[in-house]
């Protein structure tokens, strides 16, 4: 690097490899997708939509949080303990209720 024109402090700094690694690691963790915190209202809406759907045997749209992306499932639902069973066109899916971030009527 040319010391006259560049960021000379970048060339002269003293950073341990472990320090650099830790910075990167913490940055990666912070960049991770975080589960949204749902409001009371949103939870009530979801619960209402879910109970209506179960009672009337209608299909719903369920949005599920995963570390990579939100997954949207459409189908008939039943609740089993802490899990939600969604019968979609592509087959049956089990999702943890904790991962469900949205339930909407269609």
């Amino acid at each position, binding site marked *: 690097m*040319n*010391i*006259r*024109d*560049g*960021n*000379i*402090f*970048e060339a*002269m*700094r*003293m*950073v*341990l*490899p*472990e*320090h*650099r690694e*830790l*910075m*990167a690691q*913490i940055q990666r963790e912070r960049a991770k997708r975080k589960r949204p915190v749902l409001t009371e209202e949103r939870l009530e809406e979801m619960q209402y939509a879910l109970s209506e759907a179960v009672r009337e045997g209608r299909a719903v749209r369920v949005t599920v949080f995963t570390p990579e992306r939100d997954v949207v499932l459409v189908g008939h639902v039943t609740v089993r303990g802490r899990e939600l069973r969604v019968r979609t066109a592509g087959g049956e899916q089990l999702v943890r209720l904790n991962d469900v971030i949205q339930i909407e009527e269609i």
Partner: protein
Amino acid sequence: MTKLIYGLVDMQSFYASCEVASREEYAARRKEFDDSTDPPLVVSGDPARRSGIILAATPTAKRYGIENAMRLGEALRLYRRLIVVRPHMAFYLHVSVRIQMLMQQCFPFQEQFSVDEGFIAFPYPSALFPDPIAAARNLQARIWDQFRIRSRIGLAPNKWLAKMANKAAKKTPGGIVWWREEDIPSVLHPLPVEEMWGLKRRAEVLRRKFKCETIGDVARLPVGVLKAEFGVWSEVIHRWANGIDVSDINPDSYHAPHKGFSHRTTLPRDFYERSEIAVVILELLDEVCHRLRQAHQAGRRVGLGLTYEGLTGGFYRAKTLPRATNDPAELYPVLLALLGQHWDGSGVRAVSVGVDMLQFRETVQLSLFENVPARTRLYETIDEIRARFGETSIMRAVSLTRAGQLRERSLRIGGHYA
């Protein structure tokens, strides 16, 4: 016109402050603006040995004449009731990164400079930071509130002046100093030439050969006069003496790919045997190659550095290879050849091994004589075992000999206990 103000933020006695701040018995007494409320504590490389050196000392310990890099035995003679603790490097690094994140919250333009220093920058004049001193004080107060560590902040029109202003801030009550461009003749130029940051031995030359007593004397020298002595540095020296620095601030500079990888270790005693030095070289090379593999890179130039007994003298020599590699089996003979050529037989106190001229490794060079894919799988397996079970779960047999440093090194970060 709106320009950037640069700041250098440094932590006071960082390692020692981390130790004091994390021990509740001292918390009640400590006051932000009175550093004599800290206990007389030092962090010593190896508290069991009086020959270990002081890595950090609280301001209170320093008042007894204790200095960094002093032998522990000497420090204890100065003050018998000194509190001595061993280093906790992993903890300091964590605190460092958290403080760095706090700096970024206050000032999005931030660039870490060392474990306990970071540059910041913000526009001035601007509505966001109407009062630069208040903005700096806000950061300083937040560092104290969250970490109970005192910091000093130098503000100036560029990075180099910020570094110099930071030195002044250390001697200023409150610990914040703001130098403006028009202050340069009155605050920078009267300082002795040795105070110029970043010059190292060049400052002595300026005094001896060019008869410069102060930074102002350097500023008055025409750049042409410096040229013969300092080459490319002449312009940098000339600019700095005039309070000019062109370095910009790059918050993403840590994302830039490495230009090279190197490892260095200081030995517990002087090594005289070629076979013993070779063991250390191989261990360091393994670490360098491990990091190359993690980065999916290979290098074309490999270098060996030795520092001789008393940490004076030594060499660093590198050799460029016909093609890039990250295979220790290929690089080790080159290093041994460098050792054979350049080592004069002096006792060796520190060894460093580096690989640079890197390129990304998507293709594999096959060989007529070696089973390259098999060896690649071997290294992948070793890396996996180490990642899961620790650095010392699998090692070369030579690491178990008296010369081996790997087991001791694995307990350390930057040469000190993790």
